[in-house]
């Protein structure tokens, strides 16, 4: 039983490492800020969660604290990338788009108008 858990844990750690690496690679390869945010957030969140959970499976008596870490990562990381995306858009970072699909521009203009008036 313990050995099976150990193998699963090691597999999770390996997957986590690969996804952390892929997140960083996405950070470098993607063309603009928003796509970078996407790749970075998703891959690094799952990578960190999976690594941490893998360690939790290797040491079953650590599992409670490990779960707390996983939950915190899952709540906090998307939040920071959301804040970053919103702030950058409002400061005029134009998203890269092949077909010019941008429904957000109008809403921002309207909101800024409301705030200044």
């Amino acid at each position, binding site marked *: 039983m313990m050995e099976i858990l150990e193998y699963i844990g090691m597999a999770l750690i390996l997957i986590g490492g690969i996804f952390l690496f892929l997140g960083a690679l996405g950070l470098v390869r993607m063309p603009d800020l928003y796509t970078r945010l996407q790749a970075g957030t998703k891959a690094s969140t799952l990578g960190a969660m999976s690594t941490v959970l893998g360690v939790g499976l290797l040491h079953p008596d650590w599992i409670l604290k490990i779960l707390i870490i996983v939950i*915190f990562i899952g*709540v*906090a990381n998307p*939040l920071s990338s*959301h*804040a970053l995306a*919103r702030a950058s858009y409002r400061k005029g970072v134009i998203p890269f788009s092949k077909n010019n699909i941008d429904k957000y521009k109008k809403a921002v203009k309207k909101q800024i108008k409301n*705030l200044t008036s």
Partner: protein
Amino acid sequence: MKNVFIIILLVVIGYFLANTFADIPFGENRIGDIESSETVAGYYLSNTVEKSKVANVITAIVVNYRGLDTLGEVTVLFLASTGLASILYRRKEEEEDVERLNLPSSRIMRTGVRVLFPSIVLLGIYVFIHGHLTPGGGFQGGTIVATGFLLMLISYKGFNTNHNRMVWIESLAGLSFVGIGIWGLLSGNTFLENSTNVGVLNSLISGGLIPIIYIVVGFKVAVELTGILDILLKIKPKK
């Protein structure tokens, strides 16, 4: 000319630093056998467990053996916060139109911060209550609590810290810190010496006065840092 001079200076300093540290081999055991060691570290490592029943030796050093230093450290923090307040002093009439934030944050972020804030404060309290068992202690825990308050302060316009309550907590914490220290003096020991010896190693109730001192320090640091942040966030550049 100045450039050349400074670079020569840097090279000289670097050379002498490297020369000095080349003589200290990295990773060498300089303590030796801790029971018979002549170093301070040997004394601390061999005596902490029996004398004060504290698992974390660094906590024992910071709060117990070098307690007077910690008093100085707390004083420095206190002086920093008062100094900052007096440097950035503004008159009462200027205070009227002060708003901390120019723009509201998004509703998602406000909700997220609202959900995370109690857990961050709980984490800070955990860190300073368990200062004698795990890494961390009063200073770190207080910093974490202050970070939680920082998160609220930068995302909510309506969130205000209660100044009177903060002053009260700070004075009470400072007084009890000094009081515990003087109690050590009165009972015939040195300042802040751990005169009680209760509990079992590695349980929550152990280490005598050390956890209590760290809790007090934690409250004091949290309040001081929150005060610093509050003052700093309220200043506005002149347009």
